């Protein structure tokens, strides 16, 4: 009995090892499945900021995509955006301008206070009013008047490019006490 075990057990171990150690089929046909975009999936949250380089009137639309929580549910096929966006997100939006500008101090939020042309610095701009969220709006617009070579602007949100520009022009006219004919708009999630 004991002798037979001494023969059988090593045979089992060795034969198993031979089977396992045989040539492996490395091509397991585990092809990566193609990524299929779900066109009916609700749009994820994007918060878009407009930032202005006052040195040359460049306006940047910095799009911040914010991941949804597992408990979030879409409303009107749009994922909700956070009610409060911390300042660091706005600071990162500014960085998109500052890293590309000749003078980073010239980068400001694009929604400007009345009298901005006299003191063109970031303290005379509004971070909150310079952003639009995709859960409520589809487009962000800017409307400006020219004070010499400086664009003095305000920002508006809308559910069409026309509405976003109209909101920006209304805000600009009210705040700046000027007509604001220089306008532009982009979709909040990006083109």
């Amino acid at each position, binding site marked *: 009995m004991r002798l037979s075990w001494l023969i059988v057990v090593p045979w089992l171990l060795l034969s198993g090892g031979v089977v396992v150690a045989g040539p492996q089929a490395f091509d397991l046909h585990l092809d990566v499945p193609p990524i299929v975009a779900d066109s009916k999936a609700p749009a994820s949250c994007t918060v878009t900021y407009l930032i202005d380089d006052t040195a040359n009137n460049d306006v*940047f639309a*910095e*799009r*911040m995509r914010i991941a949804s929580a597992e408990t979030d549910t879409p409303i009107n096929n749009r994922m909700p955006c956070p009610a409060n966006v911390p300042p660091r997100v706005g600071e990162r939006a500014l960085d998109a301008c500052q890293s*590309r500008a000749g003078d980073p101090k010239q980068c400001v939020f694009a929604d400007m206070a009345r009298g901005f042309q006299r003191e063109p610095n970031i303290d005379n701009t509004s971070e909150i009013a310079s952003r639009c969220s995709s859960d409520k709006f589809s487009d962000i617009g800017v409307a*400006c008047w020219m004070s010499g070579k400086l664009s003095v602007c305000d920002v508006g949100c809308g559910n069409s490019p026309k509405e976003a520009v109209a909101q920006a022009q209304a805000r600009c006219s009210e705040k700046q006490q000027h007509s604001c004919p*220089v*306008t532009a708009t982009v979709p909040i999630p990006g083109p």
Partner: protein
Amino acid sequence: MNPRRIAMLLMSVASPALMGPVSTWPALAQQVPATAGPSAEPVERILLPPPIQWDNGMLNFSPALPQTARDFANLTGGLAFGMSPAQVNALLPDPYPGLAWSDLPLANEYPGEVRYFGVTLDRAGPLRMDPVGCTGAGSYLVLLFTSNGLFRLSYRLIADKNCTDTNAAAQSIFARFVPITQAIAMSTRYRTGNANVVEVTDPTVAYMAFVRWRRVSN
């Protein structure tokens, strides 16, 4: 005009140390037609940097879109940082004959050994970037190299009597590069004298990004 002579003329105006007034190369100026004047449409251009992805707590972020050097190459007609002067020259529609590293002049404003050659915008092929608005007859593109190859494109749009403001053209060139992440190509824009400058720099030599061209004459 002989292409080698054009290259030499461009080299002579590209470096601040060597730069003379634009009128020293009137023959070149005549070859660059002024494009249409500023658009009458009162619409600003909005520039689109690549989007950023935040986590749900808005604590961490990363690029929302993966980009590679291929995106930069697709934009520039096959250009890549690190190419030799001869390789870049070969991409131009009208290459300079026999252009070699040792023949290129030094760009003294940079640390280390930096050499360059220039090309008028109309001879820049896909690197022209088809600007909107007038560019000024004396505007040109400078390509800068270290011994490791190309590290910077410098568009220098210089106003003249027929094009008193090149800002719109510079902005439209800049707009083409802004969607490329700064990790692939660092784009910057500034003004010096009566020139608008757009520079696109290899991020692996980011310290070079802070070296600016200074226009010493108008």
